[in-house]
């Protein structure tokens, strides 16, 4: 049921790529990416990390109000999103920046949210990437409902819901597991277990490894080494295929680590040891793929240089984009409360405009 047996299964879960950059054989989740694919995965991780660093920097400079860093989770996100077909739909939480980029989202969409310019107002249908969801766990039900809709349509598409280790404690997430199981919905529950829910470590949220939760609801749960981009890709692909075949949901626990603070408002030195962070640094997801690329001669220095330059270019684009963002006109406040006219909103808009006009006159 758990599908996590086999040679390449470690305490960190299914593994295809060891921290030292060597490949690990796994009977169940073997994939054989071409050198070009490997380079592309590496490139996406580098871009994601650079994007994220820029987010932190911009927050420090006062350009953004907040930034939740994905540092350390690049492989989990880049690997999993790479498994999706174009029409598959993603329901993210709030830290899935690499998933967003992987879906082709405008790199400025997320900074706009964290600048407070909007609440993250992209069109979920454009890149099949739903809105960021800040109420922990809520989106797992939306993902389940969306998957149900796809199944009703007879579509071959599937859905991936992203959430954290802490989120598994929420009733909504259990309800989503159960609804998905009962209806056999084509949804993959992708839990990034980054070991921390703000200051609370796993053992404050759960008594058992999180992937085991799925068994109690009647579907497979697999732990995957979340810092191994190949394993994340392979296991997500496997789970999506199950979903497409009508075999219902899968829970993937990507075992990874939040290398940074919870958000820029957080001070992790208050609750965790530097030694723990150092231990995980040795498992860096980028480093291990870089090692593989070098060991197998799949990438040359020019590639690494070009990738770094692409990261800088992305960062520059974000930096400039953020700095030149304008605050929306306050009258838009009233624009999209309802899709159809609502007398109270209309009345308040008019009063607001009259007030502004009078104020402008006086001032």
């Amino acid at each position, binding site marked *: 049921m758990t599908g996590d047996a086999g040679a390449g299964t470690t305490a960190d879960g299914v593994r295809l790529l060891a921290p030292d950059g060597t490949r690990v054989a796994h009977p169940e989740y073997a994939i054989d990416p071409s050198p070009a694919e490997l380079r592309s995965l590496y490139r996406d991780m580098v871009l994601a990390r650079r994007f994220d660093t820029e987010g932190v920097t911009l927050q420090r400079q006062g350009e953004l109000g907040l930034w939740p860093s994905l540092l350390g989770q690049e492989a989990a996100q880049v690997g999993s999103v790479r498994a999706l077909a174009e029409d598959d*739909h993603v329901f993210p939480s709030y830290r899935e920046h690499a998933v967003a980029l992987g879906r082709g989202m405008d790199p400025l969409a997320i900074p706009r949210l964290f600048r407070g310019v*909007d*609440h*993250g*107002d*992209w*069109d*979920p*249908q454009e890149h099949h990437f*739903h*809105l960021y*969801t800040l*109420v922990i766990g*809520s989106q*797992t*039900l*939306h*993902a*389940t*409902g*969306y*998957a*149900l*809709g*796809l199944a*009703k*349509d007879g579509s071959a598409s599937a859905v991936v819901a992203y959430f954290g280790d802490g989120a598994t404690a929420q*009733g*909504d997430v259990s*309800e*989503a597991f*159960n*609804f998905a199981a*009962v209806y056999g919905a084509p949804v993959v529950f992708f839990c990034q277990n980054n070991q921390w829910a703000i200051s609370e470590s796993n053992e404050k949220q759960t008594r058992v490894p999180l992937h085991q939760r799925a068994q109690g609801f009647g579907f497979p749960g697999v732990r995957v080494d979340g810092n191994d981009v190949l394993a994340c890709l392979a296991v997500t692909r496997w789970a999506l295929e199950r979903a497409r075949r009508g075999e219902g949901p899968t829970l993937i626990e990507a075992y990874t680590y939040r290398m940074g603070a919870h958000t820029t408002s957080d001070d992790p030195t208050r609750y965790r040891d530097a030694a723990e962070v150092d231990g995980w640094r040795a498992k860096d997801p980028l480093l291990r793929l870089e090692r593989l690329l070098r060991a197998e001669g799949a990438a040359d220095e020019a590639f690494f240089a070009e990738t770094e330059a692409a990261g800088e270019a992305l960062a520059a684009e974000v930096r400039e984009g953020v700095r030149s963002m304008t605050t929306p006109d306050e009258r*838009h406040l009233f*624009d*999209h*409360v*309802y*899709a*159809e006219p*609502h*007398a*109270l*909103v209309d009345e308040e808009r008019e009063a607001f405009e009259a007030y502004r006009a009078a104020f402008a006159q006086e001032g």
Partner: protein
Amino acid sequence: MTTTTTTPAGAGERMTLVAALNASLRAVLAEDPKTLLMGEDIGRLGGVFRVTDGLQKDFGEHRVMDTPLAESGIVGTAIGLALSGYRPVVEIQFDGFVFPAYDQIVTQLAKMHARSRGKVRLPVVIRIPYGGGIGAVEHHSESPEALFAHVPGLRVMSPATPSDAYWMLQEAVRSEDPVVFLEPKRRYYEKGEVDTRPAARPGPATARVVREGTDLTLVAYGPMVATCLNAAAVAAGEGHELEVVDLRSISPIDFDTVARSVRRTGRLVVAHEAPVFFGAGAEIAARIQERCFYHLEAPVLRVGGYHTPYPPSRLEDEYLPGLDRVLDAVDRALAA
């Protein structure tokens, strides 16, 4: 507890409020293949009040879905279904059981349209049998309308008659906005005339003067409309002509109609079953004293539930604002 299940076809057929809701759901299911019903026991059982009677048989399990017993799950998956292009009509079994879904309703359903600045629409209807008066056990007689009306992004409606039930539910289902649709369960088996012909379809439900009068305006909605009409009949016998307004929509409230009436009558009493404190009567009193300050000849009075949990059923007649309590408020307002 059995109801008429045949689709009414002609004009002016008399049917119960439950039958009208059933016919309304049948109409929307037939009209739009994207419409879905979801809820506990709505399939073979037809719902504990039989509002969905026969619909699963006729439209299939994929259109009329029995769900697991989890209200947050129901509303949360309904949101997902709406995102994927469906129009779910959710049944909450009783008023007191909507609260596990409150988070999904308040933080997601109500806000996603605004969050996306209009890119996402969530045409989800949440049907809730509400209110007291049926001798039920705890949690089966609540009136939670204020808890939804205060939340921007939701529409809140409550029909008082079979005809309004028939048409307003269709309006709710066709609306591009989420609607909390409150069904006055103690009126479920009262009959009224319903003209189901498409040509009879009215415009959006605004407040309606259901009885004209000159001496005082009595505002109500849902189950209290009939009570207020009775009160007006009694008052007429005592020489007082009360104008009765059925709000029909609780968010938004059609204050224009209420104000127009109050400007003529100079007096206003608002009645609802929910506790008075922070209830709909507060909003109406506040708004009308502002709009009609110089027309009011007496303070706006409110009649409603007390600031106590809904009592055991043997005491509910004391708790519910009945004819006498409405008349008492009317008398006080007329005396002022």
